């Protein structure tokens, strides 16, 4: 017999089944690749275009993920519509994600303006700020998707950011360690996503509605 907490656990299990296809991991990994690629392109393309060239690539990747979801995942998983409580929870978490991004953007803008006026904070302050932002964003994503591994991604990328800075300080990496730290994080997340997706496709062969269910 189900208690209320069991009903909640059941809803969580059903929701998780719809998002645990590895696509979110791949998307997060691809977004992290911006931090790895932009510093490398910056000397030749400048700060703006080094980031801007990545956007069409992300758009192409986004289309690819949507196609995978539509053509490969949905025919194996089926369709489900969640109730108002779940939709409200997703909206709340989206607001947290938006707020975290907005705060990071404003902090970056303020930093940029102050930097132009001669402000030079400790490199560790910048790295710690970025690490904290990544942890907040990944935690919010983990809460929204109910996928615990996103909390680990948050901790992992935060540590990678600080480790990258340390590598840069010791002369073992360039560009404050961003290409190394975020390149590796990106590869790991996309790799995990691919493994999860392959596992899902392997264990969920395509089924179509046949004669049997027509009686229902």
């Amino acid at each position, binding site marked *: *017999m*189900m*208690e209320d907490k069991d*009903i909640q656990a*059941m*809803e969580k299990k*059903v929701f998780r*089944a719809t998002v645990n296809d590895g696509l979110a991991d791949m998307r997060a990994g691809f977004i992290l690749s911006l931090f790895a690629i932009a510093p490398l392109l910056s000397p030749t393309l400048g700060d703006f275009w080094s980031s801007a060239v990545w956007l069409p690539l992300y758009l192409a990747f986004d289309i690819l993920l949507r196609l995978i979801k539509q053509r490969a995942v949905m025919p194996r*998983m*089926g*369709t*489900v*519509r*969640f*109730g108002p409580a779940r939709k409200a929870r997703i909206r709340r978490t989206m607001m947290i994600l938006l707020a975290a991004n907005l705060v990071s953007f404003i902090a970056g803008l303020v930093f940029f303006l102050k930097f132009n006026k001669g402000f030079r904070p400790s490199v560790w302050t910048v790295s710690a700020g970025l690490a904290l932002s990544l942890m907040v964003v990944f935690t919010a994503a983990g809460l929204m998707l109910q996928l615990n591994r996103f909390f680990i991604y948050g901790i992992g990328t935060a540590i990678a950011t600080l480790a990258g800075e340390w590598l840069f300080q010791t002369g073992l990496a360039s560009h404050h360690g961003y290409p190394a730290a975020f390149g590796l994080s990106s590869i790991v997340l996309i790799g995990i996503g691919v493994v999860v997706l392959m596992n899902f496709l392997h264990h*969920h062969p395509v*089924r*179509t*509605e*046949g004669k*049997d*269910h*027509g*009686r*229902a």
Partner: protein
Amino acid sequence: MDEREPNESPRPAAGIDRIIHEPARYLIMATLYVVESADFLFLERQTGLTKGNLSSHLAKLEAAGYVQILKEFIQKKPHTMLALTEDGRKAFDAYRQGMKRMLNVQEP
């Protein structure tokens, strides 16, 4: 001597909805209870039931007025959306309450 069948007992168990009490139907009801609607394939995946088994249980739940079945064709393929009716939600709530009461009564 009491000649009643075991399931005709006047004890709290008598109030338990036997349509929902069957494990497969209970699983279907519980899954549909936590969502707004789901299609046949999704329910099949979540419950682990075979197509035939799921169909027959859904037919019973539909006959009881607990499940609403909407049939449609998407790209010439049959597609069935399923949702609990208002009566179905009430019956599932009542079933859970009934079971809770019964288990409380039977506790030593």
